[in-house]
């Protein structure tokens, strides 16, 4: 079905930079879709139909990935060999340990309270403020991620040691981000 995985950046003729002009990306996506979409090959040979299916699906996968600022970083680190596929759930970042511990305790209490029925209101407001605090941290991580992405773009011509250092930083930020995001999602689920 496929020979080699194509570099998503290369599909759009882009360097491996994290800043992407979204309007231009969309325009290229539409132009390439027009050429590659299976609709063009309904009456073509089986090989051509397969080729079109493979390349248009790659194009769509690439566009989906690169359109998402976080997905883009994950993908870049993946092809640069700095991140394992499916690397998500990590240990709590050390500086968050205390807060996470408190949060989990409140969550447990909420679950208990839901079954026994007592003290829900106070617990909920405690969790809501915890959620707010983690949402804020998520915003901070996003900003740091953006700053590190700029660093990467500026270091495109630098030596491999520098680039590796930036990649490690990006990777840490991604893990931190996905950890906090999971926390927020869990809290939101319990608060529903």
């Amino acid at each position: 079905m496929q020979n080699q995985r194509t570099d998503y950046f290369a599909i759009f003729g882009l360097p491996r930079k994290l800043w992407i002009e979204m309007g231009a990306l969309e325009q290229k996506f539409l132009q390439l879709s027009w050429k590659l979409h299976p609709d063009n090959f309904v009456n073509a040979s089986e090989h051509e139909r397969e080729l079109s299916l493979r390349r248009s699906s790659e194009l769509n996968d690439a566009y989906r990935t690169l359109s998402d600022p976080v997905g883009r970083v994950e993908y870049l680190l993946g092809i640069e060999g700095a991140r394992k596929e499916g690397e998500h759930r990590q240990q709590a970042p050390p500086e968050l340990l205390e807060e996470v511990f408190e949060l989990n305790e409140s969550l447990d209490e909420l679950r208990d309270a839901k079954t026994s029925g007592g003290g829900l209101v106070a617990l909920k407001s405690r969790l809501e403020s915890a959620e707010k605090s983690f949402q804020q941290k998520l915003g901070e991580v996003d900003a740091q991620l953006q700053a590190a992405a700029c660093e990467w773009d500026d270091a495109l011509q630098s030596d491999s040691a520098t680039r590796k250092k930036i990649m490690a930083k990006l990777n840490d930020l991604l893990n931190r981000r996905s950890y906090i995001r999971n926390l927020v999602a869990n809290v939101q689920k319990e608060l529903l």
Partner: protein
Amino acid sequence: MGRIVGIDLGTTNSLVAYLDPQTGQPKCIPGPYGGTLCPSVVSLDPGGSIVVGEPARRRLLTQPERTIYSVKRLMGRGPADIQDELKLFPFRVDPSSKNVIRVKLGDKVFTPLEISAFILRELKNWAEAHFGETVDRAVVTVPAYFNDAQRQATKDAGKIAGLEVLRLVNEPTAAALAYGLHEKQRGKVAVYDLGGGTFDISILKLISTSDGDIYQVLSTNGDTHLGGDDIDNLLQAFAHELILQHDEIDFSPHGELAQELRRALIDVKHQLSELETATLRFASPNGKVFVHEFTRGALDALIRPVVDRTMGPVKQALADAQLKPTDLDEVVLVGGATRTPLIRRTVREFFGRQPHVELNPDEVVALGAAMQASILDQGVKTMLLLDVTPLSLGIETYGGAVAKIIPRNSTIPASAQELYTTGVDNQTGIDIHVLQGERELAKDCRSLARFTLKVPPAPAGLPRIEVKFLIDANGILQVGAKDLRTGDQHSIEVQPSYGINDSEIERMLEESIEYAEQDFAERQVIEARTESESILAATAKALANPQSAALSAEERAKIEASVAALRESVSGNDYKLIRKRIDELNHATEHLAELLMNSAVSTALEGRKLAEV
């Protein structure tokens, strides 16, 4: 090659349409009774023949036990899925079949797929009578929220009806296509499509490019078991209760009387779209006549729950497209049920704008299908549909959780690769369970397929098998695997979880009337010749392209020899030989095909606009 048509295979009514080459406009084809709607009702005549459409609908009253309607609700589902439906619909399901739903018409049993094929064949006949020519290919519409199994079942039904289904198009997308032509709208459009049995909401972006118009679906949502049928069910339950109170007569909820009551109530519902009051008159066998006056307000109160159920998907689709109701430039209403004043009002209030209803809501989907059919047929396109997959694709992981690998609303075709290895020494298989749905646990998602990856014996962790999951432009899953150590590729036979496998499809094909009429081998020859015609034409066109200069003399000679060999085989009657020659030519032109596609890509990247390659 025969003609191509667009078909709306609906829960309540089905239609067939084509693009009139004279006017360039799509048109629905009328049937023998003059109308363009073919009721999706099938009846088995006591003499053994199949009756479809209007005459079958009349038999709902006289021979309900030999007649079936709303079969679309059963497509692509298993016996365990439909317990709720059975309470509401008079489906007479054969209890002896465990994995596949079979419904009884009289003393015979049929799969929903075969029933749908009867409807498709009827529409094919309408079109053939209209053109005086064979119709052998079609674009068929499906609810956007149909899952893989429901789509596959629809495609298979086409095959059994003697139609090559070139594309399944989502109903709201088809409607947008028909409206786009009609209105020349630009911007963001919401299509609210409440049909007989299914509800869809799609958010689209209409883009003008230098190549042509692109209809990009941003998000879609819906409920494949919510529609006008549900309104009728509520009305029927309400009236049944009233009659029981008023009169002593009791009647079985699925018998002839019930069908008569349902008919009368549907008339009342239709009248209430225009008038403020309408009267139900229902004569019972004991001579008493039950009379009840319905007001629109009473109808609204009764159907409010159905309308409310549509709003959840609407909100989700907007959230997925990251839009607010007021961001939409246009709202389009599709499906017969949207004639209901309460629905029009609810949609208008939610989006804060007057929805479009200019095109006949019963016909608009078929019209869009006809347009897409013509685009696919001509190969030269003036517009492009970019649709999405409505449900996330996932695989089961440890502990019964689901890892999402292709998120919902991804533009299709879409794919994802997963790497697999073994956990113990000399393990020979890895079980893979593919699911569709948004829930976190496998048991809450729709199971699409289970299969075992064969692995050559090796120490644990050494095998590296890459599995590629691909959702094609029809929204149907394909799976392929590749052994990364050996480079061996194999496609995987994925047995659909809904229970109908390829050999069963083959059997239905053989049993279907089309194949009984015409000798199987003869038909194979005709199909093989048709295919060679299009491949010979495509090859000639490709060789005329300047890019073909990059072929080596050897490659060119091989193509020419293959062309000559195929030409020669076509004059004979050996379809296996023709197929073999087609394969050889396909193989010989592989490099040429790649050259052309690469050149198309590089011109697109440079932003130049070239004539079609």
